[in-house]
Every structure is written in C-alpha cells, then in structure tokens.
C-alpha cells in the first residue's frame, strides 16, 4: 500500500473519531428525521407539508428525500448512536478522499497534513446531522476521482461520476457544487487540449442527466443554483463567512496562502511542480467565492484549495518534491486494524448515547401537552417540536427556504420582532400559544398585555397563552 493512502486513512480515522464524540444537537435534524420516518411509515415520498399549520398541504421539495430516509434508517437501527456512526462515516469518507486528493500532489505527510488538518477543522462547522453530511463525503470523492483521472490521463474512473451524481441529487441539494467541479475540469482540459477532454465532457453530460432523475426533475438543479444566489438573510449558516471567526481565519489563511504561493511561483513553476496550471485558478476562484459567500460551503473551498496549498507551499519556499513511500502490506493492515479497533472502542465507550437538548425548550413539552391551540414557535425550535410535540403543528421550522419563504417567515419576523402589524399576524393565524426566547420583544409585549405565562425557564424560553 502507498504511504499516502495509509496517511489518508489515518486522517480519516482521526476525523471520524472526533465526529463520534459530539452528541446529536442540530436543530434541523429533528424535522429531517420526522420526514424520513413519515416516508418510511407511509411508503411514499413526502411532497406536501404535514407538520405545520401555516403551510399544511402545500407542495414542496427539499431535494433531500433519500438523505432523510437514510437518517431515519440510521436512527431506527441504532438510535442516537446510529446517527453518530452515520456522521462519523460521512466525515471519515470525506476526510479520506480530501486527504488523498492532497496527497496525490504532495506525498509528504507533513506538508499535506497542514491543509488537510485545516480542512478537518473547518468541516467541524458542518458536522450537524443533516443530509449535508452526504455532500461532505461526496464532494471530496468527486474531486479525488477527477484529480486522479486528470493526473493519470485515465478516463476509466470517470464512469463512476454519473452514478455518484444520481445518488447525490437525491441525498442533498448541494450536488450542484459537484457539477461545477466537474465543469471546471472539463473547461481546463478543453483549454489545455488534454487527451481526456472528450471523456470528461461526456462524464459531465451524463452526470447532469443523472441529476435529473429525482422527484423534482430539473427543478432540483435549478434550486441548487438558485440557492447559491439567494441572500441567506434568514439563516446564519447561509450568510457570509466571518474571517474573524475560527473557521473564517482558517479559510482566509488557505485562500491568502494560495494567493501568496501563486504570486511566488507563477504560471511556469506551477506547471512544472503541480501541473495543470489552468486548473488551479479555475478551482480556487469560484469555490473561494462560494465559501466566503455562504459559510456552510467554506469546507468545499478548503477541500479544493488543500491540494494546491499542500504542493505549492514547499515549492514556494524551495523545498524539493518527495515521493510517497511504499509500505509492506502487513504494516498497513496492522495500522488500519488498530484504527478500526480504536474507533470501535470510541463508539462503544465514549460516544454519547443521548442528544444534547440544552438549546431547546425541552421543559415546555409537558406544558404543551396539556394545552390546545395554535402555537407560534421560534424558527429553530420548529424541528424539535415536530418530533417531540406532534400534536402541535408548528408555525415555522427549518424548511424555511423551501416552504415558508417569503410569507410565513416574514410574518414570523414581524411578530417576534414586534413590528407594526404583529397583532394582525397573531390574529390572522389565530395564535393561542407563543413559545419563544424570553428576550424577544414579542414576549415582553405579550406579558405586559396580559397573556399568561404558562411556564418559563429564565433566559431560555417562555410559553405564553392568550387569556
């Protein structure tokens, strides 16, 4: 086995091990899980809203039906630990292929390790248990496939791409980013008159066609690109990346490191040392733009920049190129076996067995159970309530962009921020119960207007009822 492949596996096991240590807590998991359960129970696709009272019966597609079913199956098979194992598997697979892509250009473990570890750090921001985990795994697979095909000038592995995209388009909406990745390789190979350009173009066309095979048809692809252009005003993770945050500093370092390397090396030395000189600006520029525009995609920018930084940094400071050592098969097998054992021990002994619900109004569930009436709830508690208080259909939840924008989300904002017309929102939707954070202006105003406090937890949540 090549030393670089073993190194990639080591990175994967480290990342997967860390991914196992975090308890389930993502606010969107619960509605994904409920959706998956509903589809398994009813043996059909969930294409109309059944969880809210504001949009009930309205047709919608999240573009993630298969991802939701996989999540539900993982939960049914192993409970919360099942979800954590699924997360660890996705993180591990993504890290393995991201590392292998970097190690293809920089076999030296030290130089490759720096950007790979940086990518793992950034990827932590998207370790939430949602279908986006599948993108975390599949994007590096596609990059590694393409790099492998491009470097070896072998088109055989490109045959896998349509199958990957067929699955990806049904797992998670960010498959569009993968298509952009393939398109960059196609453009570069055409400009560089590479021998594999025809096969790459065919793979791109077949992949695009494969993504059409999903319940939304071409709409899924349009939604993917439309999402990239949307404002991201409603959800923090879809907003711009702050370079003064932890992940932001890392991504900025990768980008500005790439710029420094490019300034020092220039076209000719990039061509000599890394090859494919037109490919790198084609990869770095659009994906850095995507990562800085939508912070949840910062990891994709890191994954495409990692190979360039890994190979370019030593070249820029005049260090010689290394080749990967070949390791005896028994050494590799022993190391891998030890890693599997360590991961197994982690799963059995250390991995959390219950979700972390500190961010949710868990204590309000009992009070809610004894009350009837329409509930106005915090946006990011919607999924939790869908799963844990099914008798109370929600006002809004994490399906914001696909189901609740613009009308319901605007009503929600007007109400909780106490904008003019908040009262008409409460009346129009015939709201009887309000479950929000106590510092919301709405909570303060309703208390003063005489709504009764059913129950509250200081600083965390308050449940109010109309008298």
């Amino acid at each position, binding site marked *: 086995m090549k030393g670089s492949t073993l190194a990639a596996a080591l990175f994967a096991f480290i990342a997967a091990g860390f991914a196992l240590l975090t308890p389930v807590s993502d606010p969107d998991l619960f509605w994904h899980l409920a959706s998956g359960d509903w589809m398994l129970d009813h043996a059909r696709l969930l294409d109309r809203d059944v969880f809210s009272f504001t949009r009930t019966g309205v047709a919608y597609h999240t573009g993630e039906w298969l991802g939701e079913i996989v999540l539900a199956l993982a939960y049914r098979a192993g409970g919360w630990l099942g979800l954590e194992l699924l997360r660890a598997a996705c993180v591990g697979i993504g890290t393995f292929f991201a590392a292998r892509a970097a190690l293809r250009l920089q076999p030296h473990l030290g130089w490759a390790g720096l950007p790979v570890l940086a990518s793992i750090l950034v990827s932590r921001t998207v370790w939430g248990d949602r279908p986006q985990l599948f993108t975390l795994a599949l994007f590096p697979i596609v990059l590694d496939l393409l790099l492998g095909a491009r470097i070896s000038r072998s088109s055989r592995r490109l045959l896998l791409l349509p199958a990957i995209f067929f699955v990806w388009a049904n797992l998670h909406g960010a498959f569009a980013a993968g298509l952009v990745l393939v398109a960059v390789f196609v453009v570069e190979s055409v400009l560089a*008159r590479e021998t594999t350009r025809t096969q790459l173009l065919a793979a791109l066309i077949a992949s695009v066609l494969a993504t059409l095979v999903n319940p939304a048809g071409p709409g899924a692809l349009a939604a993917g690109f439309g999402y990239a252009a949307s404002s991201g005003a409603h959800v923090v993770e879809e907003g*711009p990346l702050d370079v003064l945050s932890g992940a932001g500093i890392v991504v900025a370092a990768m980008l500005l490191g790439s710029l420094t390397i490019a*300034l020092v090396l220039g076209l000719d030395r990039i061509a000599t040392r890394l090859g494919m000189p037109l490919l790198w600006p084609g990869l770095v520029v659009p994906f850095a*733009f995507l990562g800085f*525009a939508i912070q949840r995609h910062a990891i994709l920018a890191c994954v495409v920049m990692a190979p360039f930084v890994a190979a370019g940094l030593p070249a820029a400071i005049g260090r010689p190129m290394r080749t990967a050592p070949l390791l005896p098969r028994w050494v590799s097998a022993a190391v891998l076996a030890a890693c599997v054992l360590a991961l197994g021990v982690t799963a059995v002994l250390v991995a959390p067995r219950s979700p972390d619900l500190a961010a949710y109004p868990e204590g309000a569930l009992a009070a809610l159970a004894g009350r009837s009436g329409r509930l106005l709830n915090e946006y990011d508690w919607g999924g939790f309530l869908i799963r844990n208080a099914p008798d109370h259909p929600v006002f809004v939840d994490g399906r914001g962009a696909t189901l609740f924008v613009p009308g319901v989300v605007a009503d929600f904002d007007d109400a909780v921020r106490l904008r003019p017309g908040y009262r008409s929102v409460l009346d129009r939707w015939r709201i009887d119960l309000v479950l929000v954070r106590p510092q919301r202006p709405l909570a303060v105003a309703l208390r003063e207007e005489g709504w009764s406090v059913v129950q509250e937890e200081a600083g965390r949540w308050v449940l109010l009822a109309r008298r």
Partner: protein
Amino acid sequence: MKRPSLVIPLLIGGFFGALSAQTAVKDTDFFWHLATGQQTLAHGLARVDAFSWTVPGQAVLADQWLGDVAIALAYTFGSWSGVIALRALAVAALVALTVGAALHERPGRPLVALVASLPAIALSHYAWTDRPELFGYAMFAALLWLVRIGQRGGGVALAAAIPLLVIWSNLHGSSALGVGVLAAVGLERAITVPRFRPRAALLIAAALAATLFTPSGFGIWSSSSGHFLAPPRFIQEEGVPDLRSEPGLLFAITLGLVLATAFLGRGGRLSDAAILVPVAFVSLTATRHLPFFAIAAAPYLAAEGVDSLGSALRLAGLRAPLIAPRPPSSVPRIVELTAVSAAGLILAAGVAIAPRAPDVSSFPQAALAALPPGPGLLNRYEWGGFLIWYAPATPVFIDGRLFPYVGDALDDYRSVIGLRSDWREVLARRGIRTVLVLPTDAIAVHAADLGWPALARTTEYVLLRVP
C-alpha cells in the same frame, strides 16, 4: 527611471472628483464630525464628550481630530459647498493616486492603468462621503505608491511614508493599516535583501512611532485595533462582507482578478504578496474595508494583468495582444501644470453645479421643533449626529461616535429600542422623557399599544412622550 506623466491621473482624478460632488451632504456621521471639528476650532481639542447626556464629560477618541477640523474649516469657508469641495478634492486625490500608481507600474499605458483602477474607483465610491474615512483611503493610495517605489530601492520614498503616516494618524484611525503594510513590506525586504535588515527594522520602528504623534498617543492603537479585530457588527458598514451584495460582488471580482493574475503570472512577486495579502485580510474583516484591497490591487493588476491574460490566451492556443510597457516619455512641466489647472477647473465646475444644501430627508427634521431642551431624549443611533448639529439644546442619548457609549449606555439603548425585558427599568433609571425612533422599532410599536402620546409622527420617525 523616469517618472511617468501625471497628466492622465490628474485628469481622471478631476473627473471623478467632480462626479463625487454631485451628491448632497447626507452622511449620518458627518454632522457629529462637523460639530466636533467646530468645537476643536473654537475651544481646542475635544477630549471629553460635550454632546450627550448619557456620557457627558467622559473621554472620547481624538484619533480623527485633524479630519474633523478639515471638515469644519471647509464648512466655515464655504458652507455646504465647501464640504462638497473638500469631498471632491479627496476623491480626486484618491483616484489620481490610484491611477498614478497603476500607471507607474505600466508606463505609457494609461488605458491599462485606468482599467486596473476601475475596481478601486467602483468600490471606493460607496465611501465618497463626508467623513475622515475618505481621507484615510486617499492616504492609503498615497502610501501604496510610495511603498511600491520604495520596494524598487527608492529609500526616499519609504522615508517619505513616515511623515505621511503622521498626518494620516491624525486624520483617521485607518492609519493602522498603513503601519501593517509598511511592516509587511519591511519584513519582505529584510528576507529577500539581507543588507536591508537594519533599514527594515528602522522603517518598522519609525512607522510605529509615527502613529504616536497624535493627541491619542498609545490610545490610537487600541481604537484602531478595536475596529479591525472586533468590528461592531451591528453597524451595517462594519458587518461581514457579503459577496452577494453589490460591493461584495465588486470585491469578489477584484479578488478573483488578482488570484487569476497571480496564478497565470510570472511569479517571483513576494513583494506584491507583502502588500496584497495583509490588505486582503483586512478587507475581508468588514464591509467598510473592502475598498482598501481594490486600491492595493490596482498597481499589481496594471503590472501583471495584461501579461497574465496573454499567458492564458496562449495556453488556450489563442493569439495574445502585445501591450508592453512603454518607457515614459518626458512631458514638459508646462503640460503637467496645465493638467493640474484643467483638473482644478473640472473640480471647480463639478462643485459649482453641486447641490447647495444638505439632503436631510432621511433624518427627523420635522421633529426638531417638538424636541424638549435638556436631557431625557432617547434617539436612534444613526440620528445622533444630525441632532448634535441641528438640535444642540437637546443632548443626545447616543450617536455615531460609538466608543464612548460602549458598555452601559449602548446596552441601555438596545434594551429600550429593542424592548428587552428591562426596558421599563432603563426608562426609569435614565430618566428618559421622550423617545425619537422609527415607527417600526419595537418600542414605538409597543408604545402605540400602550397609548403613549406622539409629539410628532411621520412614516419615517415618531417622537413619543414617555407618560
């Protein structure tokens, strides 16, 4: 090496300066800068607050005193037209210096210099307002030109950067960026030219010392670094740059062009990295910093952009046009003096047809008559400057100077305006008698429900009396 002609930069600067004069004075922070400048002219340096009733006598930052004085002098001598003339002059200087630095890198190619400067002109136009910040951009452009000459061995140019930094530090706090650039350039020169090391140390020490020749002394470092490392995100211009907004997109295009140029360039440009990398990071920290990178990028794009484009075209098998630099021809001094006169005439013409009165339509001007004198008014943050100037008998609760208010005053302001749970306690403790806010603010909506009397009301503002 001959100095390139200044004719084109001056004429382009004059044109954009005149263009910038066509907007009326309307910046929200302008009025407190004007009032502070007048106070300084009348009573000496303003070291303590004299405009608010929440932090009276508390220390205020004096890091923009010279900028404030320049604005006040312009107003004293020319009223609103004087302020606009000062703005036009600053914009003309900024544009002329940016184009000049670009032309210096690509002598004899004014069109290339102009195209390379367009991102800087487009991005900086959002800051063509009447604040000391505008002087900071012009100073940055001047410093860059000097630094780039210095990087080619021009010791005098580097030495000239120090007095420039002294002036800049008294105009605006962005001089911290100038120190950073000089330090990075000094370090780069020390690495690549060992015999430069003593001079590099001297340069960095002198740059740091230059910033101390201000009334704030060491305090200037804490205020500048406070802005750069912990920008107050609730202020729009201090927000995370959104690459999907118009200025964000312009920045992304600029960064993309620089990256593409670097990847396709000749390499060996560590000297450019010393400037571009730190400036790019600072630009990514907050929306108001975006123009800095475009200004820094102009000379680099002029120097390398055309050649990189040629490389890309040749790699793609296309013919690349040859746009080599031309040795600068000697321009008679009389021609340059004529250009100065022409630029001055263009500026004067622009100022002559500029609006004669400020545009206060976004301020609560009709409420002025109903404002009670003395303390007790809670006003919106962005109207504070306007009230300081137009209603001096009514001290403000808060205004755009921000720093004196950080802590209790700012927290109390947020409590009331955002209707937090302690809003009534703040009203009582502070003795707030009137509230001047937007009709959409939570306090205004709740006050309407509570039946507070409105002393003045339009769709833009509401002045409420606290019962």
